[in-house]
Structure formats: C-alpha cells, structure tokens
C-alpha cells in the first residue's frame, strides 16, 4: 500500500504555484479598482514607488500562498469514518465529511494545474449546493487513489447489505477502458449539431442588418429606397448570399471548435459498477455516472448524424440538491459522437438492456393546430395588430413573415411526424424533435409522480397530456388519446407500486 491517507498530509509541494495563482487572482479581484487607477496614471506615478508597490503585493501574495499551503492538510479518519480537512491561516477550520455523505468526487484540471502537472480534487456532498471541499493541488496517482478510497468507503457504508464488498479489491485494480471518442467523431458531431440555433442566429442577423440598412438610408437622406433603384439587384443578391454563406461557415467553425475544446480526448472507463468520464482540452473534467442514479437517458441525432453513424447521448442523474427543470437540463452529462455499437454498450450498462421500441402512441392531429396557434397565429396576430395600431414602422418587417411562417410550419410538421411514445414493459421511450430527433428513455420504476392534464376544449375529442416526473427531470407527451393514456397511467402506477425496485 503506497499511501493510505491515514496521516494528515499536505498537498503537492508544487501546489504552492497553484495557491499563488489563486491568491493572486483573488487579490486582483479585490484590488481591481486600484489597479485600474494605477494603470491609467502610470505616467504620473513615480516608477520606483510603483515597482516597490508591485513587489510588495507579489511578496504578500506569495507569503499568503505559502501559508495557505502550509496550513492545508487532509486525511482519512477511518475510525470515525470521516474525511477531514484542516485549513485557514488566521481562522483555522476543521471540516469533516462523513463518508456516507459523499456524493461525488471530481478530479479536474485547470490550465495552470495542467502546466505544472497537478490535479484538483473536489468532494461533492449531499445537502449543499456548492463543492464543500477542494484540494487544489494533488498528483494524479494520489488523486485517483484518494478518490477511490473516498467513494469506496462511502459505498461500503451505504450498502452494507449488498454483498459486493469482496469483489471490490480485485476489480478496483484494473479499470477497464470502456469507450474512447475519437477526434473524428467529435469532428462529425461539431459540423452536424446546433443547426436550428444557427438558423435562428442567421435570421436574427439578417433582420438586424436589414434594420441597419434602412437606418443608413434614412440618415443618408435618400428619398427613395436605394435597395430598389441605386444598387444593382444582382450585386446585392451576390452580396447577401456571400454574407449568408459566410455566417454559415462561421457558425460551423464555431460549433466545431466548441465541440472539440469541450470534449477533446473523451474517455469513458468502467470502475466497479460506475462509469468514469474524463474530457476537455483546456479544462479537463471528470465525472462519475452511477447507473442507479441515472433517471433519464436521451439519445439524439439528426439526419446527417444518422448518415455518419453518430449519436449524442445525454444522461440526467438524480441531483442531490433540489433544482428546477431548467437547471437539470443544463446539468445533463453529454456524451457526443458515439457510434451505434458504443451507444448500445452504454445503454446496456446504464439501463441494463437495450430498450425495444414496442407499441407506438401517436399524437392527435390537434397537436398541429395547438402548435400553429401558439407559434404562428398568436405571434403574427400580435405583430400585425401592433403594426396596425401602434407602430406602423415595424410593418417593414412583414417581408420576413413568409420566411418565418415557412420555417415554423416545416418545423411543426416534422415535429408532429416524429412525435411518438413507445411503451414496453421495461421502458417508456419518447421520441420528439423536428430536425434533431431525441429519444428519451425512462424505466418505469424511476417515475416519481404522474400527472394527466386536459383542457376543457379537449374533453369532447378525448385527448390529453401525460407528464412523468422523475428526480432527473420531466417528460411530457401529448396531445394523445386520453383513454389510452389513462390505461397507461394505471399500468405505470401498478409497475411503480407493485415493484420493490427503488428509483435510486
């Protein structure tokens, strides 16, 4: 046993550099106002005083950094089953985290940590939103060993009844590499994702530049719109298509760079019965996925991605902290660029088996009408009534109405034709989306609450909406045959109530 962490110990010595960077950063944050004054008046200031001042600050920061390093110790208290951290220069504090309160241990690397070759280890506990304890500089081996020990200790205590403690030691030692996402897959994902958002950006850009041209025309004092007369239509069209193609290429490149920077070197390893994810070019991130905590698995792909055999997998776990639905969507763990074989491997691990589609439930045609009212009739009604009664000037934008109507109508139509709910004994699968088609997978025993909603004008046509709440977010499906939905709800309730399986 190389290091069992039972004695109080300091961080890596080189960690002083990280401490220094941290302290300098907070010093700058605290003193930025003075710094700006200094920089502005740099010519008037006596150079010697300035240098002395700067040196004094640097020495102060180094001293604080060193003391921070000296006074930070951590160890595992096996007797009391706690992870203990001592820290503080003036105000000493002792933080003890019981093993069974540890939710997750993350190992991350910022750019400074990467340069000097250390890692940060953060301990996430139940019951608080922030990371309670962070070790700022620890060598990779020590970080892995400590993480293993922390999680293992917590696991053992939590699951005394489960009899996997014996197999733990042997399995721990060799972590199987599970999946590695290649640069090519990331490239494929980068150039095929976020089209809808790019299109919306494009439209917004065209509208604003239109506005800009109009303003320019007014200021320049032309009586007539030069778009019609002074500028050759052909030149203008060429210019506009050049701009549009330019924006398309730009968004493509931005998406590509964003994807690669965020997910570079995406590695998934299997550790005991959880998955360890690590990825990132500038900041390396580490996350753990435990199958029993997974609530919703979403597999998304669009037409191009289907052709290129890549899937985008999003995993939503039960969060220790209360979060609203929006936050949970944000905290979903994303695995980009998996091919079908990798996807199946992950699905088998996370959901125990590869879900079959089963019987499909289609939405009612009234869904199209509802969405047309919500996205076309109401916004256009507001637009035209505003243009008519209050601001006649916005009438100029009416030329974009056909583009908007066409785009939204196509989206509504495809969203409707893709919208399905597949139900089998083991899974509920919701398929949705117009261009990017998402499949949300839920196992019935993950359901917390079921609600059924029906507007009074839907009563006569017997349609309604079903919503399944889980600890990792909600899934809604509608408008569909209400009688059928009620049958399904009764069936799911039976599954939840009769099965001893817990949701976590």
């Amino acid at each position, binding site marked *: 046993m190389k290091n069992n962490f039972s004695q109080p110990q300091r961080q890596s010595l080189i960690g002083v550099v990280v401490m220094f960077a941290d302290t300098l950063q907070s010093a700058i944050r605290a003193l930025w106002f003075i710094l700006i004054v200094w920089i502005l008046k740099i010519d008037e200031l006596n150079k010697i005083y300035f240098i002395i001042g700067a040196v004094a600050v640097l020495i102060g920061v180094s001293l604080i950094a060193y003391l921070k390093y000296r006074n930070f110790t951590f160890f595992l208290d096996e007797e009391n089953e706690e992870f203990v951290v001592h820290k503080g220069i003036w105000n000493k504090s002792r933080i003890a985290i019981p093993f069974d309160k540890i939710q997750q241990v993350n190992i991350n690397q910022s750019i400074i940590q990467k340069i000097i070759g250390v890692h940060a280890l953060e301990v996430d506990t139940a019951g608080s939103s922030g990371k309670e304890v962070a070790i700022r500089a620890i060598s990779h081996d020590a970080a892995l060993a400590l993480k293993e020990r922390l999680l293992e200790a917590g696991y053992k205590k939590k699951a005394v009844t489960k009899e996997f403690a014996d197999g733990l030691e042997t399995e721990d030692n060799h972590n199987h590499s599970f999946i590695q996402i290649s640069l090519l897959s990331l490239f494929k994902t980068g150039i095929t994702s976020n089209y809808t958002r790019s299109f919306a950006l494009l439209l917004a850009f065209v509208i604003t530049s239109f506005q800009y041209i109009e303003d320019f025309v007014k200021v320049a004092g032309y009586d007539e719109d030069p778009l019609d007369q002074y500028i050759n239509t052909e030149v203008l069209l060429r210019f506009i298509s050049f701009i549009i193609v330019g924006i398309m290429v730009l968004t493509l490149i931005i998406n590509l760079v964003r994807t690669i920077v965020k997910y570079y070197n995406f590695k998934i390893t299997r550790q005991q019965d959880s998955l360890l994810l690590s990825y990132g070019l500038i900041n390396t991130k580490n996350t753990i996925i435990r199958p029993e905590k997974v609530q919703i698995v979403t597999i998304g792909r669009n037409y191009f991605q289907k052709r290129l055999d890549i899937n985008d997998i999003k995993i939503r776990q039960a969060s220790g902290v209360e979060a609203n639905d929006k936050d949970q969507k944000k905290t979903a763990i994303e695995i980009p660029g998996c091919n079908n074989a990798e996807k199946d491997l992950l699905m088998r691990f996370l959901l125990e088996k590869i879900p079959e589609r089963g019987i499909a439930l289609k939405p009612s045609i009234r869904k199209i009408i509802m969405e047309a009212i919500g996205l076309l009739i109401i916004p256009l009604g507001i637009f035209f009534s505003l243009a008519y009664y209050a601001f006649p000037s916005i009438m100029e934008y009416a030329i974009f109405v056909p583009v908007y109507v066409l785009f939204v109508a196509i989206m509504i139509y495809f969203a409707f034709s893709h919208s399905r709910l597949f139900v089998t004994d083991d899974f509920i699968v919701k398929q949705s989306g117009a261009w990017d088609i998402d499949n949300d997978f839920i196992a019935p025993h993950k*359901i917390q609450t079921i*609600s059924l*909603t029906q*507007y009074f004008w839907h009563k006569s046509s017997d349609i309604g909406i079903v919503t399944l*709440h*889980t600890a990792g977010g*909600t899934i809604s499906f509608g408008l569909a045959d209400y009688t059928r939905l009620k049958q399904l709800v009764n069936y799911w*309730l039976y599954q939840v109530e009769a099965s001893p399986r817990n*949701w976590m």
Partner: protein
Amino acid sequence: MEGYTNEPINTAALPRFEDVELTPLHPSYLKVIWLNFAMVYGIISIAAGVAFYFIEELRPYWLPITICYVVIVLLSIFISLVSFRNKGYAFRTHDAIYRSGAISLTTTIIPYNRVQHVALHEGFIARAFGLAQIEIFTAGGDKSDIQISGIEKQQAEKIKQLLMGKIIKEEANEE
C-alpha cells in the same frame, strides 16, 4: 426462487384511478377563498379610488377602467368557483390522487413509495375555519409535489399519520 411465478398481467383488470370517487374540499374552504379574494380586490379597489381622487387626468377614463375591472373580477370569481368545484383528492392503498384546475384539469398521482416527506400547513384565515393544508413532497421537484388545501384539521392530521405510516412501511419493506 420457489413459489415464484411470472404470469402475464391483465392490463384491463388493473385498478383504474379515473374511477375513484374523489373527496371534494371542505365547504368552509370556499369562505376562505372569498375572504382572500375580498382582501386582494379590496386593496386594489381602494388603490384605484385613491388614484382617481388624486390624478385628475385619469377621471375621463373612469368608464372603460371600471368596466374592465368589473369584467376581471367577475371572471376571477367564475374561475375560482370552477377551480374549487374541480378540486378533489383521494387516498388509495398505494397512492394519493389530487385533481385541480379550471381551464385545464390536471390529475396528479403520487405513489406512497415515492413520497419523501409530508408537511401540514395552517394559513392565518384557514385556521379560523379549522382547516389545514397537506403538502406531499417527492424527489421529482416542485411540479411533482401536491398541495391539498381545505381539509379539516383533524382529517389532515389523520392523513399525515397515514402517509407517514406508509412511508415507514415502504422503507421497512426495502430492507
């Protein structure tokens, strides 16, 4: 594995939540609603009166403003009444059912083995009428919780005991 059977279940024979007779809220709760209503709209009316008294420019518009206000009040009275009528709850062997809503009718069902905890609230006005509110929490976030107002205090206490008993029993079963 002895005595283990795995018969196909007859989904048509499953108990149907939609056939359960729901208990309506206590009639006194309507009084609580009206009192709250009177308070809110009373304050708005007084504020409007003060505004008309001090701001002379507003006075020519008294007729459209009053008509709008009366329409809004009547509409809210109607909606409150409908939503009171629609509200109902039931506690089955394995789950709690709550129905609410005016324009849309929502039925929410929480299985007891997913309940995290139960809270009992007493509002200021509701207490005068001997009423309480039961709130049932799950791990599914705000929207998956149910709040049942307008239950008689004693009844609410009993419900809370029942739910707590169920939670403990479910936990014992898991061990």
